[in-house]
């Protein structure tokens, strides 16, 4: 027995993304954002996308390229504070934006990846984020039904991968990548290094390859991955 090989060329995998798809994109700010896969998606040009990402990066970076290319219909996110361009599109009604509490967005994605229908949480129950949500009592206390999120495709950035799709992340570039890598029908990973099977110790795997469909090796890291001068 050997484990299947899931390495492939980037173009072929991104071509699976269709108009109207829901796409999860890893990253919190620059770290962990799959910059190269995002550029490939812009080039591919699938439209009317629903994007699920913690933030909208900064103007001219990351998923802001998808916004500028007019490919995004709806954005499910937690905070757009660093991207005035995205806030402008939202205020002008050019994209729909759904805000979630950050940990609840993470849990909703995790629920999708864990095959759970929803979680019951009291986070934000006193706030306007509770509006329109079903309420269920647990042990006498009201909780919001926070439904699971799943996607057609997840775009993941990893530090290292083996050909089966076992992944490792580095520092705060981990963030939403491990949960998103569980929660999509098709999980596409860009990895800074693709190492041979067996080179990642079994105890050190952070996302098991069972969740991963395609692994793309990054040949170069563009300027977008670098430290941002502020």
């Amino acid at each position: 027995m050997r484990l299947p090989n899931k390495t492939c060329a980037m173009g072929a995998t991104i071509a699976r993304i269709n108009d109207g798809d829901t796409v999860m994109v890893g990253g919190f700010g620059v770290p962990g954002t799959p910059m190269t896969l995002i550029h490939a998606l812009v080039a591919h040009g699938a439209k009317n996308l629903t994007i699920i990402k913690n933030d909208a990066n900064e103007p001219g970076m990351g998923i802001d390229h998808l916004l500028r290319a007019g490919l995004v219909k709806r954005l499910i996110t937690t905070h757009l504070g660093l991207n005035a361009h995205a806030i402008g599109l939202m205020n002008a009604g050019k994209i729909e934006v759904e805000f979630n509490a950050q940990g609840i967005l993470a849990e909703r994605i995790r629920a999708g990846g864990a095959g759970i229908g929803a979680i019951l949480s009291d986070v934000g129950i006193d706030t306007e984020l509770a509006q329109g949500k079903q309420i269920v009592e647990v042990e006498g206390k009201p909780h919001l039904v926070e439904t699971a999120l799943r996607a057609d495709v997840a775009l993941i950035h990893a530090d290292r991968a083996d050909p089966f799709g076992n992944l490792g992340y580095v520092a705060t570039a981990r963030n939403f990548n491990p949960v998103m890598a569980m929660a999509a029908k098709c999980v596409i990973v860009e990895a800074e290094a693709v190492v041979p099977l067996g080179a990642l110790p079994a105890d050190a795997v952070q996302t098991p390859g069972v969740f991963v469909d395609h692994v793309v090796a990054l040949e170069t890291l563009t300027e977008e991955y670098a430290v941002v001068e502020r």
Partner: protein
Amino acid sequence: MIARAALEIESGMTVNLGIGLPTKVIDHLPSHLEVCLHTENGMSGIGPTLPSDRADRNLIDAGGAYVSTVPGSAFFDSVTSFAMVRSGRLDLTMLGAFEVGANGDLANWKIPGKFSPGVGGGIELAQKARRVVVLTTHTDRAGKPKLKTECSLPLTARGCVARIFTDMAVIDVGPEGFELVETAQGVSSADVAAATGAPLRIPNTALPSF
């Protein structure tokens, strides 16, 4: 029957082999096959079972057997393990059975008053794997059919079983109930029908045997 069941596993699959008969399928998988074996207690990429003098005290499968790694194995915790199961990442699971209904219902965890050690991971495997096949003796120790019109024991999951491998036959669960697919060497279709506790559809064409 175990060798025949092993043919059900195709290249590229992620597979969970249940405790008991199904675990033995591992010895019948060809070495070139690209497959990932999963166990509920937290491992993907299971390698061969080891005798106790070569065993790692920290490396067991869900049945308690000492197993080994292959290149690319990964360890994870129990929540991650069942996240894989429930979110549909298992292409196939092979389970044991006390009873299988002609509607695909499976009962394999409890005999009220006699045997009720708890369900373990069985419900999630039966309900959530993309394809569920059963490996079982065709009849119980008393010679009574395990394949029945309806299960009488507490269910593990409804309508989950796609195919059954027994010592007598390979049987599919179709929209109209049990359908004979193959017979064991020396076993006739009539023998299988007689040992089955529900109507058995037998095709007019000659059946392969195993």
